[in-house]
């Protein structure tokens, strides 16, 4: 399983997540899903982390359902899909947490970037296993189409 992302999009996501530090930043991966689990990210849609107001954004993110619905309806008109989300792990590895697993949906790609002392480092992509017991890692292909 491979997720391809254009370099400029990945750079924009890195920038957004560095700007959110020390809180977790988040947004949608937008693009097209093909056969055999392959997908291409065409752009990203940053969204507000609702946990900021709750004071728990240091290690949590939450996207308002209304933001999801608005984004998905807009993309439907463009022939694009929400492929998944991206979020940061401030000063933690780019691996899904147990909390990530409990809240994950099937099919979606979860791109995680570790942000260490404000600098975006490791980038990894994960998908929930069919039995929900863990994640499978995708190969990240950073390149132009």
């Amino acid at each position, binding site marked *: 399983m491979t997720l391809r992302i254009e370099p400029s999009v990945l750079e924009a996501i890195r920038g957004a997540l560095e700007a959110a530090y020390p809180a977790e930043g988040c947004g949608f991966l937008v693009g097209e899903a093909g056969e055999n689990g392959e997908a291409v990210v065409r752009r990203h849609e940053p969204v507000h982390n609702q946990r900021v107001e709750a004071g728990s954004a240091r290690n*949590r993110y939450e996207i308002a359902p209304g933001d999801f619905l608005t984004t*998905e309806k807009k993309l439907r008109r463009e022939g694009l899909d929400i492929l998944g989300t991206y*979020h940061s792990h401030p000063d933690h590895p780019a691996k899904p947490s147990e909390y990530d697993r409990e809240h994950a949906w099937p*099919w979606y790609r979860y791109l995680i970037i570790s942000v260490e002392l404000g600098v975006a480092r490791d980038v990894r992509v994960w998908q929930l296993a069919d039995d929900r017991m863990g994640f499978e890692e995708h190969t990240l292909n950073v390149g132009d189409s």
Partner: protein
Amino acid sequence: MSTSVTILIPSALRPSVAGLVEVSVEAKTVGEALGVLTSTHQRVKGHLYGEDGRLRSFVNIYLNDRDIRELEREATPLAAGDEIAIVPSMAGG
């Protein structure tokens, strides 16, 4: 009387409904519409409902852009042309 409404399917659940982006059903209430969907496409049922038969907490159902929790929940009546959206809660840590 049943009316025809559309259910919008998020990309994550499309593999469970034969790849459909939206599904048209005849129903009187939101709950009945979801019942028709899950009886026609049984794989989607486990994603929407828990073992207690209730909608899962991280599943949001919107009727014409309003959360049904603000309406009459699954008993919310439907009118012709209504649009039901299944909206996943996206969260993590």
